[in-house]
């Protein structure tokens, strides 16, 4: 299927946690334009939320306003989302996996975000390029929905 600009996700947010809610609406819209299930939107939003919360909360050594770019596209049966920020160098996927079987009293508070990203996304990549952190998330389109886009406009 040909990729067109209309179907891509292209969002710039600033380093304010309130922006994550605004982004989620645009991700929902991106997913529904591709006629993918709402579960997929939930999973993409959760992964983006966890990564962006880290960047916004801990990524910047100053109090300045920064921009973070989020780009998404779907090529064949693969959803690819890219996050680019100019915060301090940080590879989120080097964080140690939490112990998910620990009893309540031994559970550390926090540390679960990146674990959730790995559960929501099939392939995660990180690179540092030109002073920017670039995270790439790849997720297969749910099999059941593969090819549905070709039936566009049938129900409208």
């Amino acid at each position, binding site marked *: 299927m040909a990729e067109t600009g209309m179907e891509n996700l292209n969002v710039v947010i600033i380093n304010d946690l309130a922006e994550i809610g605004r982004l*989620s609406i645009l991700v929902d819209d991106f997913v529904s334009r591709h006629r993918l299930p709402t579960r997929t939107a939930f999973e993409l939003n959760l992964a983006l939320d966890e990564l962006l919360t880290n960047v916004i909360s801990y990524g910047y050594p100053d109090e300045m306003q920064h921009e973070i770019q989020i780009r998404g596209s779907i090529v064949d049966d693969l959803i690819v989302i890219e996050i680019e920020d100019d915060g301090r160098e940080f590879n989120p996927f080097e964080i140690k996996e939490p112990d998910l*079987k620990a009893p309540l*009293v031994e559970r550390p508070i926090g540390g*679960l*975000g990146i*674990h959730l990203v790995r*559960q929501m996304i099939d392939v995660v990549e990180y690179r540092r390029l030109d002073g920017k952190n670039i995270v790439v998330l790849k997720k297969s389109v749910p099999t059941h929905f593969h090819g549905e886009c070709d039936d566009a406009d049938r129900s409208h």
Partner: protein
Amino acid sequence: MMQIEVIEDESQHVVIVGLSGRMDSSNSRAFEEKMVNLIQAGKTRMVVDCAQLQYISSAGLRVFLMAAKQLTMAKGKLILASLNDDVRQVFNLTGFSSIFQICDSREEAIRNHGD
């Protein structure tokens, strides 16, 4: 956007906290403050009703964990009710389903406080 509603069921001596909307890092602090205030006010038999909660991230899970730890120390109990499939999945994937008592309805959660 998240809303928090607190109802005291005086006949059962249970406080019900109803959540609706999205709980993420931008608003989990409001939930945390509400829970801390309730626990400090001696409300240690609690139900959090998630029937209208559409979304939760680890920032929200963190508050549940903190509240459960504080309630355990205060000899109280936290029971969750009515998680939707997406929220339930987050609890399952993080092992939180095994550290919290989760009921299918608010009524069942209140009944379980009576045991």
